[in-house]
């Protein structure tokens, strides 16, 4: 069994607790207007070209060109097929850091649960090795996908982008019904969930209060994180030859503070 991975990130410290290694799975069912990982959207491998890094080595002119050979690291292959056996040693390399910091491994993407069978096998092997595991998901996945990974996942990092369905469709091109239901299901199963709300002015900034009311009756939410939208992904879109309509306006500190305050007051859940 293989999965398409577009990146392995070590010393990831904002994808769950402690020092983590994050595995980015390629392919995502949502199309968020603000997506900052465009290389994770499509399931198939893509080669990006960072023009300003090209040193003219000419390797890409050869027929059997492999982007790994590009000397300027201008051409980057996003999407490599990897087996659990290949991934495991790479993920265990930093296990001492996980232990000293309370960290572990996070599966992310794209949407990792699109490749749920692989995720389940990988998570199982990680648990066998005593590694703390997290799954970062948009929630737009079949119930069976969740069921496969639930036994081997310590914490879910779960995105809520909007409560109102129309707003959600406007932001992501998809309904959020499955997402909200899946979250309830996880809660019923007693799984620890950290909610992550990307805060994108003019898109979902009016959703905060509604989301808060939705979340207030859940019992296994450990914390809610508000992730401020940033527009640093433009270069990646260009390098991938993809169009983007990234929002221009960035959230202000006041907006973020007020969003957190609302979430805290209504849900009584920690919102750092």
């Amino acid at each position: 069994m293989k999965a398409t991975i577009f990146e392995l990130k070590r010393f990831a410290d904002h994808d769950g607790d402690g020092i983590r290694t994050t595995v980015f799975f390629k392919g995502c069912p949502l199309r968020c207007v603000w997506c900052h990982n465009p290389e994770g959207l499509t399931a198939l491998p893509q080669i990006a070209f960072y023009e300003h890094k090209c040193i003219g080595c000419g390797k890409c002119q050869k027929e059997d060109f492999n982007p790994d050979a590009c000397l300027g690291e201008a051409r980057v292959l996003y999407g490599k097929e990897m087996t659990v056996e290949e991934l495991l040693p790479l993920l265990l390399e930093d296990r001492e850091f996980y232990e000293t910091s309370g960290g572990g491994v996070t599966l992310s993407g794209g949407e990792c649960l699109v490749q749920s069978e692989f995720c389940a096998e990988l998570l199982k092997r990680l648990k066998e090795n005593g590694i703390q595991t997290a799954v970062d998901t948009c929630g737009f996945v079949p119930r069976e996908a969740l069921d496969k990974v639930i036994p081997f996942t310590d914490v879910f990092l779960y995105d809520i982008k909007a409560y109102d369905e129309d707003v959600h469709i406007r932001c992501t091109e998809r309904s959020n019904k499955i997402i909200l239901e899946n979250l309830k299901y996880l809660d019923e199963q007693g799984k620890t969930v950290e909610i992550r709300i990307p805060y994108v002015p003019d898109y979902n900034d009016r959703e905060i209060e509604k989301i808060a009311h939705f979340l207030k009756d859940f019992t296994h939410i450990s914390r809610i994180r508000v992730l401020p939208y940033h527009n640093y992904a433009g270069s990646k879109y260009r390098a991938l030859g993809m169009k983007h309509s990234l929002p221009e306006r960035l959230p202000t500190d006041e907006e973020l503070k007020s969003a957190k305050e609302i979430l805290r007051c209504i849900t009584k859940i920690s919102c750092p």
Partner: protein
Amino acid sequence: MKYISDRDYDYIINKHHDASKPWNGMGRFVRRDEIFDPATGLDADALREGFLAQDESIKDLPHPIRKARALEFIMKNTRISCDPRDRYPSVNANDRPLKKTIIDNWKREVLKETIPEIGKKRSYLENAGIVTIWPDYDHSVPVWERVFALGFAGLLRESEEARAKGTWDEKQEAFFEGIRITYEAILTLVGRLATLAEKTEGSERMAKALRQLQIGAPTNFYEALMMDYLYFLISEHIDYLQVRSLGNFDRLFYLYYKADIENGVSEEEIRTDLAYFFLQFVAISNYWNQPVYLGGEKADSSTEINELSYLFLDVYDQMSIYTPKIQLKLADSTPKDIVYKMLDMIRRGNNSLVFVCDKTIREALVRNGATEEEARTCVVKGCYEHGTIGSYSAGMNYLNLLKPLEYTLHEGRDAVTGEPAGLPCPPPSAFDTFDKFLAEYERQLANVIDLTVEVVNGFEGYLAEMNPLSMLSATFPTCLAQGKDAIAGGALHNGSELMFGGLADVADSFTMIQKHVYEQKTLTLSEFVAILDRNFEGEGDEIFRQALLRDREKYGNNQKRPNEFAKHLISIFERNLCGRPNNEKRGGTWSFGTHVARQSYVWGDKSLASPNGRKLGEEVSKNASPMLGQAKSGATAAILSVTELDASVSPSDFALDLGLLPSAVRGEEGLDAMYGLVKTFQKRGGHALQINVFDADTLRDAQKNPEKYADLQIRVSGWNVLWNNISKEEQDGFIRQAEALC
């Protein structure tokens, strides 16, 4: 909280020199006499003429006495100041009057006249960029326990008692006489300062403390600070001996702190005294900064961290200063919250904080002859060096690992100067296996080590001739017991240290040679050498260089081969140097480490391009750190690589400089992650960890020189990208973010 008013701050910062004037070439303030009241003594020129004229008349006396007489002249006659805007006095001796006169002359005499052959070899090694060797007056720490318990007067009394008890030869008599004159002169100076303070309205408290230190030991927190400061000022600037630590501050000062609090002194007062104390070092502004350390472990394995440790960091943090620089002796028992406090300071841009791992340095000292107790109480000094209390280790000897590589590849010649600097050896084509090449490198390196030992052993027997250390020796009980100078073998341990630079460069170069020449056979060793000789500037060379730079099989990425080569280099020193005797008069042994300070830049200009892709003129890799820009697998892999080295093999430096971006360490998770890095480094037997959270200036440099920052990553929740992969505008965004954080 502001401890020092603007009025006082302005006075203090200008009291030694005009702080608005540019620095001199050594990065120091230019002397300015007129700041000191002429009524208090001679100006610096008259002072110099005075002690030199006096020295002319006593030329037949032993050096310890001649130096002591010069010190006496300075301490009796130099200009001084006390001011109600300050809590500490000042002495006009910032330009170290003895350095460019008597002591440099003695050094010249020894190296040019007494041992000219050794002197010539030393100059050659230095000029060719092979080994830089200086007499080491830069790494001593007095026995602070005795300084505080006895005061200057008590140290003098003990020396005189030891002198009276024994039968001494002429040289030993001169040693004691040097101490007597020096300490009497110190008491004279302290008395002059006390008198001036008594006459200065608003300086009554300072006067009282100075009077106490004229007759005895400090009795409260403020007097202890005054003692620390005076000892530093006199040793560093008058005696010309750097004080490379103000001591184990929290341990040494706790008794005074506790007693003061019990006697009703407010914490506010203590904090304010400390703030004025810190500011003295900012005002003096020696570019090498003033070290002081916290923490360590008590005999019962509990921590030395106490409430004073926190107070100390608090005041320091609130002042936003960069000197003194602070080391934390990090033990298993060190409370987590003080590590967090320091990490939080570091991520806000304070680069003056270093973690030194207690277990590693203790192991290293025990492996090299110290007792468990000596190792437990060892001092941390300088950047991150360490040694047992009352020991003198000389270590201004820096070896460039790239030079033996040049000799190996050029038939024993220096490829930049063409000189036959190494041992004659066959041309590259003769190394038909990698092992033959490696064996030749070892032979060339062993030869450079031998040369270094010959030169250093040759002159270290004359260190006390060049600069006798009466002031320091009086604090070392072993010196008084033997009637012997600390620098001439009188200390508890009397080691010599060789530091080397280029560890990562050479480990990576070996990897590239083995891979390209002997495995993939894409080019011959001779062809590789030709490319290095033309500095990667021939046709197609740059493409090849990029391939070398791009290869992640480099030290710092936790790759087996370069890690093994780095370990192998260490083992060469272990076999060829560790435990070798140094000069017989000093009676110690040799050890080694990887600390090179600024030499990495000086050597860069003198070292041919290297097989890892480094060009002539680019800096040589420093400390135990990966080559700049080559730790592309991030902080964790860099730590795994560096801690593969056995840092306890030698009681010296294996420091890692780790760069992190503000965005990677923001928030509570950022602190948890930093803590995880530090603790893993410690657990895996690392020695010293210097974390730099890149500030906006660094990022601007990264924008201008992307090739130096190929491994720099930026992080935003769940998303990461290489610095060089983002556009200028986006980089600007991060620079602004870094600006906001500072």
